[in-house]
Structure formats: structure tokens, C-alpha cells
């Protein structure tokens, strides 16, 4: 019975499809989950700093001058979609749909991640060209710090995805590789959670 293998950690549980790795996953994923919580606190403080600086434009541009609803919406959509494809990759890994599907979903996720980063970079360049640089005001400093910390996390996720794909090619579906992909998927989903707050507080809050 599948229900006999109880869930041991957040995210997709391997359960009876790979009892050996499933047993190992408990400790490894718990550790990673704790790390993610610590990371969330870090983001929370960047948010608090942002919130405390909302009026601190020092005569420079404010949210309504520099944000565009459409590009925020596209970025949000891309990231959300990548969460779904990451989930598909986890399922493909669990049910050993290797190599084609697993590579496919991981590849699509990587692509979406890169598209997201590209869009964000484009936004930043555009803002900077209008004079909205991080040095312009406290508000812009805090905006860039918050959003690019998230961006750096996505970049780290993309590097991690690339390495996972390479390791799949080199080692196949080994326990170690599976555990890494499982952690990656938690990481990726949590970045999307952080993004919910970014688009709600920063973009929508700024434009509403």
C-alpha cells in the first residue's frame, strides 16, 4: 500500500518508489528546510527595510514612475509556471521517467528561470537608464537589495539545476542525485513564495 510509506518531509516524498532514499531523505531534507526558514527570515528583514523606506525617495522617482504592471505580471507568470514545471520534474524523477521526461522538465524549468532573470535584468537596466539607480535614494537602494537578493537566489537555483542535469548524465538516478533534486525543488518553490510577497508588496503595493 502506498499509504504505508508515510510522508517524512515537505515536497514530493519518494515513499515506496525508492524506500532506501526515502529513509535518507528525512534528515537531509529536514536540514535543508531549516535552512530555508532561516533564509525566509533574511527576506523578511529585507522586506521590513523596504517597507520602512517607502517614502524615502529623496526627491527622486517613486514607484509609480518606474514600475510597469505588465512586466511584473509577465515575470510573475514565468516564475509560477517554472514552479509547476519543477513539480513535474519531481514527479518524473519519482516515477523514474528518466531520461527523457526528467531532462525535459528540468530543462524547461532552467529555461524559465533564465527568462525570468533576463526580464528582471531588462527591468533594472531600463530603470537605471531613467535615473532610478540604487544610489539615487534610500527607497531605490532597498528596492534593488530586496529584488536582486531574490534574483541571486534564482541564479543560484539555475546553477544548481545545471549541475543537477550534468550529474544525472554522469551518475544516473542515484540516491545522492535524487536527494539534491528534491532539495532543489523545495528551494525553487520557496523562491516563488518569496516572489508572491515581492509582487504584492513592491509592485502592486507601489502601483495601487
Amino acid at each position, binding site marked *: 500500500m502506498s499509504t504505508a510509506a508515510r510522508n517524512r518531509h515537505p515536497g514530493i516524498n519518494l515513499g515506496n518508489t525508492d524506500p532506501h532514499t526515502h529513509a535518507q531523505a*528525512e*534528515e537531509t531534507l*529536514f*536540514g535543508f528546510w*531549516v*535552512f530555508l*526558514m*532561516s*533564509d525566509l*527570515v*533574511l527576506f523578511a*528583514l*529585507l522586506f521590513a*527595510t523596504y517597507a*520602512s*523606506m517607502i517614502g*524615502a*525617495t*529623496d526627491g527622486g522617482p517613486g514607484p509609480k514612475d518606474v514600475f510597469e504592471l505588465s512586466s511584473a505580471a509577465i515575470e510573475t507568470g514565468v516564475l509560477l509556471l517554472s514552479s509547476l514545471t519543477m513539480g513535474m520534474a519531481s514527479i518524473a524523477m519519482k516515477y523514474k521517467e528518466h531520461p527523457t521526461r526528467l531532462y525535459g522538465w528540468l530543462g524547461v524549468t532552467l529555461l524559465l528561470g533564465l527568462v525570468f532573470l533576463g526580464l528582471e535584468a531588462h527591468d533594472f537596466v531600463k530603470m537605471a537608464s531613467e535615473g532610478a539607480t*540604487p*544610489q*539615487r*535614494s*534610500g*527607497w531605490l*537602494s*532597498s528596492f*534593488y*537589495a530586496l529584488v536582486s537578493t531574490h534574483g541571486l537566489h534564482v541564479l543560484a537555483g539555475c546553477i544548481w539545476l545545471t*549541475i543537477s542535469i550534468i*550529474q544525472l548524465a*554522469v*551518475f544516473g538516478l*542515484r540516491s*545522492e542525485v535524487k536527494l*539534491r533534486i528534491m532539495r532543489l525543488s523545495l528551494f525553487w518553490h520557496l523562491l516563488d513564495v518569496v516572489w508572491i510577497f515581492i509582487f504584492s508588496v513592491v509592485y502592486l503595493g507601489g502601483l495601487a
Partner: protein
Amino acid sequence: MPTTEGWWPLLFGRLSYDALPFYSAIATAAASVVVLGAITVVALITYLGRWRWLWREWLTSLDHKKIGIMYVVIAMVMLSRAVVEGSMMRAQQAIALDNPGYLEPEHFAQLFSTHGSIMIFFMAMPFLTGIINFALPMQIGAREVSFPLLNSISLWLTAGGAGLMMVSLVIGKFSTGGWSGYPPYTDAAFNPGVGPDYWIFAVTLSSLASTMTGINIAVTIYKKRCGGMSPFRMPLFCWTSLCTSVLMIFALPPLTVATGLLALDRYVGTHFFTNDGGGNMMNFANLFWLFGHPEVYILILPAFGVYSQVISNFSSKILYGYDSLIIATMCIAVLSFTVWVHHFFTMGQSADLNAVFGIATMTIGIPTGVKIFDWILTMAWGRVRFTVPMIYSLAFMVLFTVGGLTGILLANPAIDFQVHNSVFLVAHFHNMLIPGLLYGMIAAYTYWFPKAFGFRLDEWWGRVACGCWITGFCLAFLPLYPLGLMGMPRRTQEFFEPAYLPYTIVAGVGALFLLAALASLVTQLVVSIRRREELAVPGGDPWNGRTLEWAIPCPAPEYNFAVLPIVDSRDAFHAYKEKGTAYLDHRFYSDIEMPKNSMTGVVFGIALAAASFGFVWHIWWLAVLGVLVAIAAPVARSFVLDTTRIIPAEEVRRDHEAWLARLRKLPPADRAVETTPQNRGLAEAAAA
């Protein structure tokens, strides 16, 4: 001479000959000590031909006990430096009436900044991390921590930060902004030099290391307990370590954010904490103390655990009020997130806001009081043995209560407005940190030393050190209370009020005792190593211990337990001894899988320390290279699949049986001879 053009800045950034400390005799002397010390150590290892051994047995080891010991070594080295610095400041203040003394104001400011930063980040944190690392897995009946490689990475990040502090003594000048590094003073506008950068990077490395340690310890406690070790059977030290690691996980991110944003202000020109551009320096104070207050509980809780352990052990009694101690510890941990404003009552927020945080602060006194009573009641009607760790514990209980009471005074905003930034505060926090944290750590060092090296520390020198620490503390810091009430500000290099002088002289004499205490600790170590045959305790149980770490040989084998224990009560080893089942032959042994050595941690730590040095001096190639290597190291490691090593069951059996055979020939030691060479590590209770 270096110029601002050409190849020099590309290669060496803003390094120049001016960075060398020849501008002052004292700075030159200090730098020489560092350089000569480093050369001596390197020469000695080379002469003894021990490099390979050092690399294989220690630096790359993933054994939690060795990592713990290395942390303690870092802590002791840094302690020596910081105590000397503290004493230099005391000496200055003892002569500073209408007198510029021997320390320039700028140098004095560097001293309290390095002293404070080192004591907190590179003495206290490594010390407690080392002690937890060493003792905790054995106490919960585990062979390893959950993430041994991460452990080594944390160690090497800490070492990298400590190294950066040492380098700052030789190349360039450290920050003068205190251990809290408040902007705008530390912003580029007022402090363009390298000082604040050294502070930022050293502290950030330590902060990242501690976050990871916290994760590692918490997960170890959650997932690695041996059979039967339910949470409420864990020794109290494990509980306090758990709370400390939870605090590390959640309280260090604010520090990382604070130093990170300050670095952006300095390097990129953003406006987080600047005077202009919409910056808000008050947010730095807020972020820093969001970390800073929980930090003081990170520092004190492990010491509380040690005291609980020591008091119960040397009173030969089960800990009184175990549950209440756990609840109190958890209350303290949660409450510690609700009081940070008391560090900046005077910043200008409304009285109502201050009142909320003032009241929250006072409530922490309640769980702490509960603990003191529990310890007293543990001793009551027990047979108390006045060994060195126990003397520290008794001194702690008295002195810490005094410090706690002054803390309650400071929690009242109206009082805080009077004594804020005076030496009253200096007296208060040293009163918590020296009798609280430092005595606890030295007690732990004395208590667990035999488990690490196989022999006890010399008792007489231990007592001398203990006496000096207690006398020294009382003389050096208690006068600061009246002095603070008389209005003497902290961080003062020279003063003009004659009434201060008698007190600062007494405090200066106290500093001499503290130096003597440090010297006694060193002497104790040397003497003990010389007498190691006499002091050896191969039986493994020198103190008639109660918890699992005493059930195994001294020094503990790499795998800790030949066969993983199964417990059915609190104070499990004590129960085994009562039942006469402490030293049984096991029927079955199995292969033991242990982590192989890895150089990933070493490379990672050194790379990030080098990158930090590059950032400090604007040597951009070094900064980029360091970061790239630091990323590459764990990535490369993830391609290594063969990470563990098997210790065959046969070998385990052989070693274990040899130990048991030896143990059975040892003379059981009565507690009356506990501190004499007759104590071979077999307690009378077990032999009975």
C-alpha cells in the same frame, strides 16, 4: 611608492606601505607578536615533521570531536589576545586622569572594537560551538552530527574570520566603531579607510558560520538521538544547545542583513544608513540588536547547560526541576526575540514603545530566577564536591545573580536614560559574560578535557586560575557600577574627574589578576601535559558521571560507541551503573560507517577569507577569485560519491574488548580521591 595609476592598484588595490604598523611602537609590537607567533608555529610543525599528520588527523577531519577541539583552540587563542587588549584599556584608564596615557584615542578605539568583536564572535561563539560539537553527539548516543561536511565548512569560515582579525593587526587598521559598528560613523563618508570593512567581513563570515552550525546542531538533536532517548530524557545540556541553535538559525540573519547593507553603502554607494539620500541609520541599530539580543542568549544558554550538568554531577544528584529548567530555557529563547529595543531606549521612540519592551525585558528575569533556584535545590542535601568546574559554578550563581539584578535595573527605560553609555553598562555586560559565559566555558573545558585527551587537567593550577578569574572579575568590574553611576562614560580614553581615579586604579589591579588567570590556564595545560601519565583516566569515567559520554573510553574513539546505546531513563549512564550493566561485553558488533576526511571545508574557508581580504583592500581579482573558488569547492565535492569509510566490526570488537579488559584491572576510585592520581577513570559506583 604605490600610486593610484598603473599596475599597482590593479594588483594590490589600496594596499600600500602605509598599511604597515610602523606608525606606532605599540602597534608594531602587536604586529610582531602575531607575525613571530605565526612563524614559530609554522617552524615548529615543520621541525617536528607534523604537517601531514596535522592535515590528515585534524585540519581535514570531519570528526565532530576534533572539529569541536579545533573550535576551542581558536577560542583560546583569541581569548588570549582579547584579554590582553582588555587589560591594556584598563591600564590606560588607571592612569588617564588629566593624562593622555600611553594609548592614542584612535588606538584606544581600535582596542575596544577588536576586543568586543573578538570576545563575542571569535572567543565566545567558537568556544560554545566547540563545546557543543564535542559533547552533544556523545550525550545523545550518536556517532556523528547530521552534516559533518557542513560542520567543517562552518569551522573554517570561523577560522577565516578569526584569521582576518589577526591580519588586521598587521596590515592596516581595524575599525574604531565598536563591536556594534554603528553607521553613519562607519559609513564611507566618515570612515573611508579599511577599518569598518575588516569589521564587516570578519563578522559576516562568523555570522554565516554560526547560522550553519545552528542548523547542523538542531537537526542532529532532532534526528540522531539513540534508541530510547526521547526528548525528555536528554541531558539538560542538549536542551540548552537546542535552544541556542534555534536562536542561531533565526537571530543571525538580521546580522547578515545589517552587515550586508552596510557593505553595500560603503562599496556601492547606496543609501541604507547614510545621512543623506533618504538613508536611515536607526534601522541599523534596529537590525543589529534584532540579532544582538538573542545573541546574548546564544552565548549564555550553553553555559546554563554546562552548569546544570556540572552541578548535578558534583552533587551526586539527579538535576532538580528538570522539566522546569527546560520550560524556562524555552521561554527565554522565545522571549529573547521580544526585547531588542532595550539596547536603544534613548534613540527617540515614544515612551509607550519603550515601556512595552522594558516590561518584556523584565519578564526574562522570571525564567532565569527559576533556574537559579533549581540549581540551588540540586545541591541541597547532596554531597557536593568542590572540584574546579563546581567552583566555577558556585561563583557563577552568586555573581550572575548580581549581574542579572543590574540588568533588571537597566530594563527600566527611566533608569536606562541615566546610565546609558556609561561604564555601568560595561559592568553589567561583563558581569553576565565573564561569570556567565566564560566561567561556564572554562568549567566545560575542565570537565570534558579528559574525554578529549585521556587525562585530567591539573587540579591545583585549575584552582589558581579559578581564584584569579573570580578575584580579577570582582576587582576589575564591580567598581564600574559606582563609577557608572558617577557618570563616567564608556569608551573613554582620558578623563578629568578626580573622583573616578581610585575606582579605575582598582579596576586596573583587577586586570592584573585576569592576566594572571590567563597565565594560570596556560600553565595548567603545560603542567597537565607533562603529568599526563599520572593524570590518565583510561577507564573513561573520572567524575562518576551520569550521562552517556562517560560510558566510553577516554579519549573517546572516533566512532564514540562501539555499539549504539539504548537508554530507558534520564541520566542513563548513572542508571547503568546502579544496575551493574555499565560495562558489558556486547554480543554483536557491526561495521561502522564514518565520513571520510575532506578538504572542502579548508578550501572554502580560506577562499572566502582571501576574498574578504580582497574586498577590504579593493583587490578585485582576489575578491572574485576567492568567491569563485568558494563556489567551486562544494560543487566539485558534490561529484565525489565515495565519502564514507567502513570501520570493520572486527576492529571495533577488538578495541572495545581490549578497553574492557583494561578497565576491569583498574582500581575503582572513591570520590575522596577524585582529584588525585588514584583516579583512573573507574568510579566506585560501577565497581560495587
